[in-house]
């Protein structure tokens, strides 16, 4: 963390005039910013502590006992001997890829359209609306709509739509950031020089938008790959990776250690990738 002396929440000028009440003096005396940072770090620890513990317990002989020792690789060898999770894993990867591609294409088209509209507000609000709707609610609503109203059989297609509704707003936001930054004079210059619209798009616009589009693709893949709430309603007879994990975790049975190992492996791959990606994204903006 940064130097606490620099972390003052508000600029403070020592020479201010006027009477100070007791509360004011209290507010200035006792480093509120340190309290704020400490509490925030506790909240972050509540998120990341369990992840670390998950990794530790995946090596423990009795994962649910709370004792990390004695250490063992038994769960990992069980995991690799067990092939029940292969199908859900492959299904989740394929579904994630489909959602990512769809989000990238539709997101790019809509983001380009949004910055060119005179009043993008209401379209943007509608596009971002699913961010506000709880997963369980939209899952139940889509289930009743597809299953009861339309009488369709649920399967991968309904999972795909459910995941699109979840991932697309995030993808759109990321692509919007780059389309808003895009300088339209580049297109105008290219047109003046005689470029056709498609050439303009492929050679000038697309390469410049690519960081946002590829970011959106990765985000949508991860959102779809880890989606549970909507999937439980829309899956029909399909089982995705989070649904499999959920079934194992909530059954309170001997499969739990395998879930610990599997989740640890998935986290060991995705956490560094996500960390690096997000850090580059936010650090670049910080400058």
């Amino acid at each position, binding site marked *: 963390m940064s130097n606490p002396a620099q972390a003052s*929440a*508000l*600029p*403070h000028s020592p020479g*201010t005039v006027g009477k*100070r009440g007791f509360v004011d003096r209290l507010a*200035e005396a006792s480093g509120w*910013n340190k*309290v704020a*940072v400490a*509490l*925030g770090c506790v909240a972050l620890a*509540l*998120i990341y502590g*369990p992840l670390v513990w*998950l990794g530790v317990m995946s090596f423990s002989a009795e994962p649910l006992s*709370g004792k990390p020792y004695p250490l063992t690789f038994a769960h990992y060898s069980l995991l690799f001997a067990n092939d029940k999770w292969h199908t859900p894993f492959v299904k989740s990867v394929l579904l994630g890829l489909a959602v990512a591609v769809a989000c990238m294409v*539709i997101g790019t*088209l*809509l983001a380009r*359209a949004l*910055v060119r509209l005179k009043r993008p507000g209401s*379209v943007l609000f509608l*596009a971002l*609306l699913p961010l*506000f*709707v709880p997963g*369980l*609610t*939209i899952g*139940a*609503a*889509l289930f*009743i*709509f597809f299953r*009861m*109203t339309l009488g369709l059989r649920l399967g991968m297609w309904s999972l795909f739509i459910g995941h699109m509704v979840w991932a697309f707003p*995030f993808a759109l936001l990321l692509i*919007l*950031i780059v389309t808003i*930054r895009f300088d*339209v004079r580049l297109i105008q210059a290219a*047109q003046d020089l005689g470029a056709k*619209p*498609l050439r303009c*798009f492929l050679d000038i616009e697309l390469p410049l938008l690519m960081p946002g589009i590829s970011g959106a693709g990765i985000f949508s893949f*991860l*959102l779809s790959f880890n989606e*549970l*709430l909507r999937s439980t309603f829309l899956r029909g007879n399909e089982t995705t*990776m989070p649904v499999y*994990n959920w079934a194992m*975790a*909530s059954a309170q049975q001997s499969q739990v250690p395998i879930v*610990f190992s599997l989740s640890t492996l*998935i986290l060991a791959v995705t956490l560094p990738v*996500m960390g690096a990606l*997000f*850090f580059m994204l936010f650090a670049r903006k*910080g400058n």
Partner: protein
Amino acid sequence: MATATALSSPRPWRLPGTATQWFTGWFLVAWIGVVVLPLLIISAFSFFSMRQYQIVYDPTLSTWVSLAETGRWVVVLRTIRFAVTVTFLEILVAFPFALWLAKGCRSPAVRACVITLLTIPFFIDASSRIIVWRSILGTNGVINNLLVGSGLVDKPLTWLLYSDFSVSFGMFGSYFPTAVFPIFLTLSLIDDDLVKASSGLGASRLQTLRYIILPLAMPGIVGGVVFTFVPLMAAWIEPQLLGGGQVNLLGQSIQSALTNLNYPIAAALSTVVIGVLVLLLVVLIVSLRGRFSMASLFQSLDR
């Protein structure tokens, strides 16, 4: 900066390739079909009834009446109590933290790091993250082992897991980032000169906070409440895994009603959540009105 004007300025040139209006129109039709229409339909379903596993499309209030008579409204009240408590605690911790992140933190690297840490949880499988709490809070979990081992308590504490406490505890971690982000966004939009002017004119730090920062941050605080309270009303993973059957909330009722093919009840309970959502969204839109345009919001993302 081109950002501010990019959204409003008229464009003299034709679009390359795709026709903007045409695509936007088709997108809206499809999107309304998979987002707005299902939400309207599930609300409408609460006014129908079931007979022999078939929906009777005949408007009736019987579902809502039975909701009141069978005592399911207690579940609604209990869920509201959980959601209010956790949301209050979230905002209490999130506001000072967001203030530090937006204005106090001087190092861009530290800020990028913290924002990264706040973003990652959106992308993590929730059930594996929550289930670990069992081995931490359980009667033979880490905390009880430490407490008993150090002699602070004689017997393991049983209220740590499968209780109101563990459910709220799990919820707090899950929804902290969603509470911080909207507040952080609005706070980083506040011009530093306003704060300097306020203290230059003799306002104490508390006065600056009360009369300058809080009013300007209000849309963000409302946004934080929306993003925390609404999903908490439909929280399902935390009560299911950490409640151990002791804590029955709205999310579980909706889920069990759906698996029991009791669609009108599930629809009515979902409608309660949608009602809360619409109410809070209206408050959010009113508090945003005339304050921020889309362009200014993206300027803050740009920083």
